[in-house]
């Protein structure tokens, strides 16, 4: 049975918001190809944590009033919001057959509300940018990880004229592609560089429809991806699919008693799916499920606990600690899908540790066999003291 759009999206947006911020507090560990050097990374994370602790108490006015999605404008920054995130997962294949799964996320945290910052020195830290870039290469899921932090002041920022959000040499340019609703992504790590055009193939899903929403956003469940990925050994022309989440508003900072898991799937029959499990950390209690299933034509069905069943197929002890449910079976009316972890270790750690890694999907959708790719993000499974 389907659930109502409003409540499911309401839960999803909070969950995505929490996940979004958590994503920016991590770095990869136990990964031979990790680009980070522990010393500076740890130092910068501490500094960022200090700033964000301040940001958490900053008095940003809550968002008010009705809003309706406006593209491409809402791809851009919303300075009135305390925080905002841009998150993309993509599943790509090269003309020569190589496969890549990637996750690229940007976040902007307001430290000082814009009306106050305008009267201060340009060197005052009024906002912080964070970015995180993961690429899993090949069927073994060899990982490349990179993260960035910036205090803005030219090294990171946003420009509505050029329709660009940037963080060092990484950037998102919006208003691209057919219909001007697409985005172009450029990001790099020591061992990988991407330059991709993403064009929506389905209508955006808006997440808030009430005047009192304090967190707003939208998802694009399927974008067609084309572009290039460069590694030390080669350059690949790639194509594939992506899922985009955008959020702005009162995005919670990491921490607290709630954990979220998120599975995002893109299937060979054109279906896209997102499932969020919300749990209490370290407590039995109930978990809630909220999902959206978007068919090839872009029609969305919202699913809750009555319409979704999840069974954990594999728990894996991660290098670095924690036991993660890395492979899931997802069932509901008309679908039965197996999402199997396709990388050995995807535990990420910065301030908030988590698992974030690709899955390979097989199963049935409306009686027909389907395959696909996805990304699984797991939080709150770490060893508790």
């Amino acid at each position, binding site marked *: 049975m389907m659930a*109502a759009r409003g409540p499911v999206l309401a839960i999803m947006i909070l969950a995505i918001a929490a996940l979004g911020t958590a994503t920016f507090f991590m770095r990869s560990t136990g990964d031979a190809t990790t680009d980070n050097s522990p010393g500076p990374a740890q130092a910068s994370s501490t500094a960022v944590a200090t700033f964000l602790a301040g940001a958490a108490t900053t008095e940003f006015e809550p968002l008010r009033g009705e809003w309706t999605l406006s593209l491409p404008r809402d791809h851009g920054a919303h300075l009135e919001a305390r925080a905002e995130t841009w998150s993309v997962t993509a599943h790509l294949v090269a003309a020569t057959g190589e496969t890549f799964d990637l996750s690229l996320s940007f976040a902007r945290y307001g430290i000082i509300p814009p009306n106050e910052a305008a009267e201060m020195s340009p060197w005052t830290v009024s906002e912080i940018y964070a970015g995180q870039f993961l690429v899993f290469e090949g069927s073994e899921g060899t990982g490349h990880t990179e993260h960035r932090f910036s205090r803005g002041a030219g090294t990171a920022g946003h420009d509505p004229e050029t329709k660009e959000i940037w963080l060092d040499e990484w950037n998102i340019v919006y208003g691209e592609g057919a219909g001007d609703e697409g985005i172009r992504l450029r990001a790099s790590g020591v061992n990988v560089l991407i330059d991709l055009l993403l064009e929506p193939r389905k209508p955006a899903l808006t997440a808030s429809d009430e005047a009192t929403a304090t967190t707003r956003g939208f998802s694009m469940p399927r974008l067609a991806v084309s572009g290039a990925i460069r590694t030390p050994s080669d350059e690949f022309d790639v194509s594939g699919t992506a899922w985009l989440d955008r959020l702005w508003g009162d995005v919670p900072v990491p921490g*607290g008693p*709630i954990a979220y898991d998120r599975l995002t799937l893109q299937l060979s029959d054109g279906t896209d799916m997102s499932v969020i499990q919300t*749990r*209490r950390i370290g407590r039995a209690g*109930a978990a809630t499920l909220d999902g959206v299933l978007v068919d090839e034509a872009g029609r969305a069905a919202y699913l809750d606990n009555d319409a979704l069943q999840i069974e954990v197929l594999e728990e894996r002890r991660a290098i670095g600690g924690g036991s993660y449910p890395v492979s899931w079976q997802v069932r509901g009316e008309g679908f039965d899908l197996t999402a199997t972890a396709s990388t050995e270790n995807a535990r990420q750690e910065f301030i908030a540790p988590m698992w974030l890694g690709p899955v390979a999907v097989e199963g049935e959708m409306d009686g027909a066999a389907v395959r696909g790719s996805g990304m699984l993000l797991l939080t709150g499974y770490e060893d508790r003291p």
Partner: protein
Amino acid sequence: MITRRATTGLAAVLALLLMGACREEGETAHRSETGLVPEATQRPGNPDAGYDALVNAPYVSCGIPYDAFRRLSPETDEGDLIAGRDGLNADLPYAFTAHENDDGVTIVSSNCLTCHAAKIGDDLIIGLGNEFADFTQDPRRLALQAGTYVRGAAETAAWEHWADRIDGIAPYIRTATVGVNPATNLTWALMAHRDPVTLEWSDTPLIDPPSTEPLPISVPPWWNMRHKTAMFYTTVGRGDHATFMLLASMLCVENVEEFREVDAYAADIRAYLASLEAPEYPFEIDAELAQAGAPIYEGECAACHGGGKGGSYTNRVYPLEDIGTDPAYALAATDGSRDRFYDWIASSPYGDSDSAAPAAGYIAPPLDGIWATAPYLHNGSVPNLATLLRPDQRPAFWHHLAPREYDEATVGWRHERLDEAQAEVENSANRRQLYDTTLTGYGKGGHRFGEDLSPAEVKQLLEYLKML
């Protein structure tokens, strides 16, 4: 988005219960005969102090940390503010009360007004049952949402205290339809999780919990408390009403000492409730029609419901075979399946062996302000008074229409007759709004009194009822 919907739901979950109990001269323990309900002495109280306690005191002592509450619900509508509130409460919606717990965390809890206050037009009427609260959702979902913004050890401990309780009661309080209330089942669920002597909470039930399919009730108006000698439809609540009402604080109470603290002002709250009078009908009344309706009322209604406004009221329970309304609620109260809960009350500070004593029937309530209390019957199965008086025309499937508007002609909220049962409706949001009178406990039958009245007489009677 999340904000108002979530907090409204949370309020509904938190504030639910209000029960009463005691027993009487029935030959079986925990049972009363149908017929006259004898008077029970009530503790005296100060109505003004009672109002102050009702809208300011932390009788529901667990809830959402204030900071997290304000992140979810940053603003309060002007229309949701009420007079006589102190400190933070002055800026909170009427259904929420703030207080500081022993760890220094300010907590926001739902209060009695979540279920016992409602608006007609822009006017908030304290004591009017909320017939639009949504208990169809899993409250654990809302508790998890509320936890999103909880930070720090003290806030987390406070939130977990509340979330644990929500986990405990969640399986027992989901109704099939938006608007009906599961308060009774919630009360039984809380008893199942508490030691009756110490009131200590147990995460696992200590006695068999109630059904996971609560029988629906319509929230009765508080202003009838001034007339009634027992509480609730089956008159299960006998004896000291004030203490019995404190089952409302049982969601969070940790020990007998905490119970005593609240009980100290319970009589004041009861005195305030007993001081309430029905609201005046806010629209125009056709005096001539109403006058013509007066003798019809005397002939059709007064024998059971009393003599109208200012008239005498006889507290009488009518057996199921006489009233004919959906029997599930009264049968469940008297078939022995709830005796363990009545025993619990007898062992607890909330009552004694005479406290919980339902009769196998339904009380005929006073009709003060009956125009305001749609939908009708104990389960809210009949959308308005016009259809109540035309039993064969009552809709089997219906829902309220949005926006909410009062229909003066039919005396009730605008509704729409539907063709499908809940089971046939795929969309869960639409399904939950649908009142399906074929579900157990949701029946629309019985109370056929007045069915032989002519259309003109019905019109006259409806106009008279607006005056009560």
